């Protein structure tokens, strides 16, 4: 009867594996340019393995949600909450790293820049979503 409730949320099961492959190839390319092709090959291997695991894993809701083909509105909310938790963990890690670097007499860079970018992105996002209604 109604197939609209997951419209625009679900995505192809190839999305995450393809994204992993593209990121792996990009890492390989920059490592190659930087004179460390071996590290690039290892990174590509890890990302390709991750993509294959996600692609070929079973039909559990968690795997399908991560993969994208089992997403609905509830999983979109789970994804949003998980993203917020990941962002918070990143923020805490950056603050701790900045404090440690500063206490050691170092400049605190690039943690200060990353914190500034995070803070600015948050404020801009709040302004945008408030404006959008």
């Amino acid at each position, binding site marked *: *009867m*109604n*197939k*609209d*409730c*997951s*419209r625009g949320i679900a995505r192809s099961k190839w999305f995450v594996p393809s994204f992993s492959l593209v990121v792996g190839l990009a890492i390989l390319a920059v490592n190659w340019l930087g004179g460390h092709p071996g590290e690039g090959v290892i990174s590509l291997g890890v990302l390709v393995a991750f993509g294959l695991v996600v692609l070929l894993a079973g039909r559990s*809701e968690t795997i*399908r949600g991560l993969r994208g083909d*089992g997403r*609905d*509105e*509830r*999983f979109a*909310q789970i994804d949003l909450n998980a993203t917020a938790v990941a962002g918070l963990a990143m923020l805490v890690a950056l603050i701790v790293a900045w404090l440690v670097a500063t206490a050691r007499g170092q400049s605190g860079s690039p943690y200060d820049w990353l914190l500034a970018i995070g803070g600015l992105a948050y404020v801009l996002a709040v302004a945008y979503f408030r404006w959008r209604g």
Partner: protein
Amino acid sequence: MKNKVRALRVQKDMAQGQLAEAMGVSRQTINSIENERYTPSLPLAIALARFFGVTVEEMFDEQGL
């Protein structure tokens, strides 16, 4: 939120998976709604109400928030 989704589904002799398929969501989402762990969006709530031929107010109890 308290709701009558399970009662209406059982009344129709449907499995959670069948209702999920009809609504375009996962079986786990139907299960979470029935167990009051997840409050559906307005479009899904309306779709559920229409599917069972009741109003949203009849299906969901706002006192049970």
